[in-house]
């Protein structure tokens, strides 16, 4: 009799296991749906986020430990209109069972037109922005949280301007007052100190090309060219400042500032301004940061939420690349 009871119990255990397998199979089938929903939401999220830099006329490229931000100062498009048009196209093209919304840092729904800089390079906390954090882009500004962070990366700057240099820097004889550090038309005041006092410093390379294809480059000591023997500067004291004279206007200058005491100002500032601080030319910039890490991303201080209305599943994250 004991054997019969034992056998029956074992048989029931077997049936229980069988049920368990069947229910697991069933639940496995039903988990496909949430996975598909998540995949769809993530794709829509990344698709929208990837389009944002282009919409504000900025291109962001990551390549291992290099980050390049390509920009136009000032923009050649109306960025507010461009953001509005993109939001309209999102509403036009996204399926009706998805809801796309933009949120401010307080998680309140805002229109995409309220999206503002800075581009935040995380986790280094380096900010790439413009005056008053708006898309007027009258100047390029880069802020660094502290000297030790800036000391750990280098910055490579390539600018192209739509004006003509007052003299051709590749032919120093056409420029006046040429000395071992520059000329009257390409003047540093103060000069970068090439990290003479030791770290913290910012390492940099600089290249500026005018609309005639003439290039002024640092660090360069090419024969016959206006020299620029600088490749770094200290993150203390006064910032190194370059002024370049423009042929078409005696009051228009290309101005570039780097380094100095970053607790009181930007790490880098680039602008083309006249005596009244009005923009007097276009600058197309390629700014490449070379970090000592490959783990970084660029985000904007606005959140994007993609909500699947059927399942009430959503993805909310900062707009990042």
């Amino acid at each position, binding site marked *: 009799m004991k*054997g019969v009871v*034992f*056998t029956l119990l*074992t*048989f029931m*255990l*077997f049936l229980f*296991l*069988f049920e*368990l*397998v069947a229910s*697991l*199979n069933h639940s*496995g089938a039903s988990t496909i749906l949430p996975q598909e929903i998540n995949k769809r939401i993530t*794709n829509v999220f990344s*698709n*929208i986020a*990837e*389009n944002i830099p*282009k*919409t504000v*006329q900025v291109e962001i490229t990551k390549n291992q430990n290099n980050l390049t931000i390509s920009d136009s100062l000032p923009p*050649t*498009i*109306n*960025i507010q*209109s*461009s953001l*509005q*048009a*993109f939001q*309209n*196209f*999102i509403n*036009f*093209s996204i399926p009706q069972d998805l809801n796309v919304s933009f949120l401010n840092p307080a998680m309140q729904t805002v229109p995409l037109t309220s999206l503002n800089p800075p581009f935040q390079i995380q986790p280094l906390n380096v900010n790439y922005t413009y005056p008053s954090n708006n898309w007027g882009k009258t100047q390029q500004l880069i802020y660094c949280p502290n000297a030790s962070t800036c000391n750990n990366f280098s910055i490579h700057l390539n600018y192209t301007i739509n004006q003509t240099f007052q003299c051709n820097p590749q032919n120093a004889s056409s420029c006046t007052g040429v000395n071992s550090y520059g000329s009257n038309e390409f003047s540093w005041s103060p000069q970068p100190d090439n990290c003479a006092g030791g770290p913290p410093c910012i390492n940099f390379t600089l290249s500026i090309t005018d609309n005639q294809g003439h290039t002024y480059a640092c660090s360069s000591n090419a024969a016959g060219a206006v020299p620029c023997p600088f490749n770094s500067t200290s993150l203390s004291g006064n910032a190194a400042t370059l002024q370049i004279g423009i042929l078409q206007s005696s009051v228009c200058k290309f101005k570039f500032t780097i380094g100095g005491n970053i607790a009181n100002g930007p790490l880098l500032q680039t602008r083309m301004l006249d005596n009244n601080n009005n923009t007097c030319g276009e600058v197309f910039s390629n700014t490449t940061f070379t970090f000592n890490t490959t783990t970084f991303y660029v985000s904007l201080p606005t959140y994007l939420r993609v909500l699947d209305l059927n399942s009430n599943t959503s993805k909310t994250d900062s707009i990042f690349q």
Partner: protein
Amino acid sequence: MEFKHFNSKIGGLALKGFFFSIDALIAVGVALSFAALISTATPTTQQFNEYYLFRTAQSTLAVMDADGVLSTISNMTPFQAKPYLDLQLRQTLPPNVDGRIEVDIYNCVDSACDNFTLNNRIFGQQILSTTSSKVSIAQRIFSYPGSTWQTTYFEIATVQTWFDNGGFK
């Protein structure tokens, strides 16, 4: 007495055999249950193939956008754009995958750019030259802001991918 003893001995043996058989059956059942569990928890080659095709379609769109292919076609006639798209697609796809691309180009209807019109639909090869039953689809939107609303346009690009050799075995 002898007979009765013999019968009970035979009955006991039969009962033992019955329980032994039941135990064996249960053991086989349990083993089969675990085998079924393992097989359902392990991704199949078919699932890998589907994922590979989808990722390939997604990456293809990203690469074609980064290379400027998708912005270039807006300046082409459909007659020029079709062979160009096919060529670029073939150069982007891995050798074991074939595909088809379709790009819808939308323009703003007015200066507010709050409505859109389909300006052009450009697609590559029309016939799916495939025996594969599995076709993966990726779709992305692309924004091309212009200096005016007339030069602003948007694209919805769709890439279908399939294996031309049956996929990974």
